[in-house]
């Protein structure tokens, strides 16, 4: 039987606020355990939550960026369950009236086509703390620094049909939240993670199959692998006559498998109700206008502009706008050096290569946009060749200064003096009579030999086009 996979994602993105969603404790990552858990975060008797303004504007930013309706009034509710990393015994979240309503995100598929993925809603909630299972005499240690960190949970429609689509959606959302500066998107630190709802159904069937929920996946690679494993598992179960149990499963990256979560075995009855400590949250039209005005150009719009303005291919434009830093870098370099095609090649070639090699973000690149632009200008004005430029780039990367300084210091300036090149050429012609004869006899391939010899002798500083021309002239070709 042919099976169709159906996937919906719940993405939890940590909002990049200074303080927590309901308290004035810091949200900085990596502090000593429980040093950033204040009375409110600990749920001490008598404490009360007060909402952080910034989380509301950040949620509104996302809402506007995905074309969603922002609820003029939204409500916080309590989700009640007992867990040691949940200090109050309830999580403050949103249920009936989330702050962000229906929106959508366009993803690009591998074959170059695009697909719209629906976003059902996005709601604000507080994160829980962390349980540490290292050796505390068989006990678990609880660190509540993360408790109360603001999260925006973005819930998609079950619109994805393969693990690849799910990854494309997750990547696109990841890029978007960073673009609009509501999250640092740091996946190692858990700032961007997702739960995947996965089911399969016979191709052509309308009703959805029973789904399982894969919890807390924090890398693109794992999302793909976890979903693929789970799809395979579900098909195996169904094809051998079994039934899928609706359950929560955990992806084990080491074993590359999913297994049921023991702590979630019993069906949860969360007893949601409106939090009486918090009042309805208003997003006024004026706040919305303020947020709208502060939004940067969004990725899709920027991509389209790149195609138009710089005559880039859609693929190049997509890659260059995949992060705001990358796109900003590209535009800065282009402004300095002018030649967008050349810039594209360098940004996506040598620069990306070097960044990848050293695992660096573009924002931490030792070669700034100004430096790269400065170097590309020297290619355009024939001061250096593309080949020499590679050497200059490497030197800039190593911190040896900007392009002009390096060219100067290392004497890499292209030789444009015809006399100097002719002298070298004469010597080579004299030393290689056989090749000269063959070339004259029609072996055109030998042109490369002569040019190569000149380049070798000049340390690459001659202009190959110029050498070509001179050679032809000298041999009367």
């Amino acid at each position, binding site marked *: 039987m042919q099976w169709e996979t159906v996937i919906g994602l719940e993405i939890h993105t940590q909002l990049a*606020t*200074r*303080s927590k969603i309901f*308290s*004035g*404790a*810091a949200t900085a990552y990596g502090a*000593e*355990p*429980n*040093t*950033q*858990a*204040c*009375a409110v975060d*600990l749920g*001490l008797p008598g404490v009360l939550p*007060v*909402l*952080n*303004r*910034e*989380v*509301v504007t950040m949620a509104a930013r996302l809402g506007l960026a995905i074309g969603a309706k922002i609820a003029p*009034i939204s409500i916080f509710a309590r989700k009640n369950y*007992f*867990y*040691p990393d949940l200090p109050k015994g309830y999580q403050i979240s949103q249920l009936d009236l989330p702050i962000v309503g229906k929106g959508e995100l366009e993803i690009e598929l591998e074959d170059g086509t695009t697909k719209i993925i629906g976003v059902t809603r996005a709601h604000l909630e507080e994160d829980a703390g962390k*349980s*540490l*299972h290292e050796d*505390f005499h*068989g*006990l*678990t*240690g*609880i*660190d*509540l620094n993360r408790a109360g960190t603001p999260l925006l949970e973005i819930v998609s429609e079950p619109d994805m049909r393969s693990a690849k689509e799910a990854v494309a959606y997750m990547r696109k959302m990841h890029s978007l939240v960073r673009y609009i500066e509501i999250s640092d998107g740091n996946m190692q630190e858990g700032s961007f993670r997702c739960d995947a709802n996965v089911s399969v159904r016979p191709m052509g069937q309308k009703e959805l199959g029973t789904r399982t929920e894969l919890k807390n996946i924090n890398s693109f690679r794992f999302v793909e692998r976890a979903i693929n494993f789970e799809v395979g598992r579900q098909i195996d179960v169904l094809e051998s006559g079994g039934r899928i149990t609706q359950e929560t499963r*955990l992806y084990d990256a080491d074993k590359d498998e999913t297994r049921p*979560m*023991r*702590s979630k075995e019993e069906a949860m*009855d969360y*007893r949601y109700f*409106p939090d*009486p400590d*918090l*009042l*309805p*949250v*208003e997003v006024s039209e004026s706040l919305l206008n303020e947020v709208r005005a502060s939004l940067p150009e969004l990725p899709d719009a920027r991509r389209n502009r790149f195609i138009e303005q710089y005559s880039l291919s859609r693929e190049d434009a997509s890659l260059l706008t995949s992060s705001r830093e990358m796109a900003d870098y590209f535009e800065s370099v282009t402004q300095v050096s002018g030649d967008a095609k050349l810039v594209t090649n360098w940004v996506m070639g040598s620069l990306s290569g070097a960044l990848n090699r050293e695992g660096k973000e573009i924002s931490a690149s030792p070669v700034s946009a100004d430096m790269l632009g400065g170097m590309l200008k020297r290619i355009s004005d024939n001061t250096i060749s593309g080949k020499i430029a590679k050497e200059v780039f490497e030197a800039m990367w190593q911190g040896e200064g900007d392009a002009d300084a390096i060219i100067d210091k290392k004497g890499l300036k292209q030789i444009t003096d015809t006399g100097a090149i002719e002298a070298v050429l004469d010597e080579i012609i004299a030393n290689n009579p056989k090749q000269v004869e063959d070339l004259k006899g029609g072996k055109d391939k030998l042109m490369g030999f002569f040019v190569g010899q000149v380049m070798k002798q000049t340390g690459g500083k001659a202009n190959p086009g110029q050498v070509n021309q001179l050679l032809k002239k000298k041999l009367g070709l």
Partner: protein
Amino acid sequence: MSLDNSEVKRIAHLARLVIDEQDISIYAHNLSNILDLVEQMSSVPTDDVAPMAHPLDTLQRLREDKVTETNQRDHFQLVAPQVENGLYLVPRVIE
């Protein structure tokens, strides 16, 4: 409305309360009486009534995104039943 012992146990578990076996039927009796009292509401038509979650008709105030709290871990952990290396300790959690 009358609750039987198994329902009392289910609710007690939901609320993470251990109830002595011999007290279960007393709870069942009392809780049933309370639910009977509450039941009086059901005779009142309320289809057109907006639920009132809060006595005052006001909106949530928003705080500035500022860090105002300092580390008081040692002070707060003075009242904790069991801590080590700054962590609260609980019996092993299995995920």
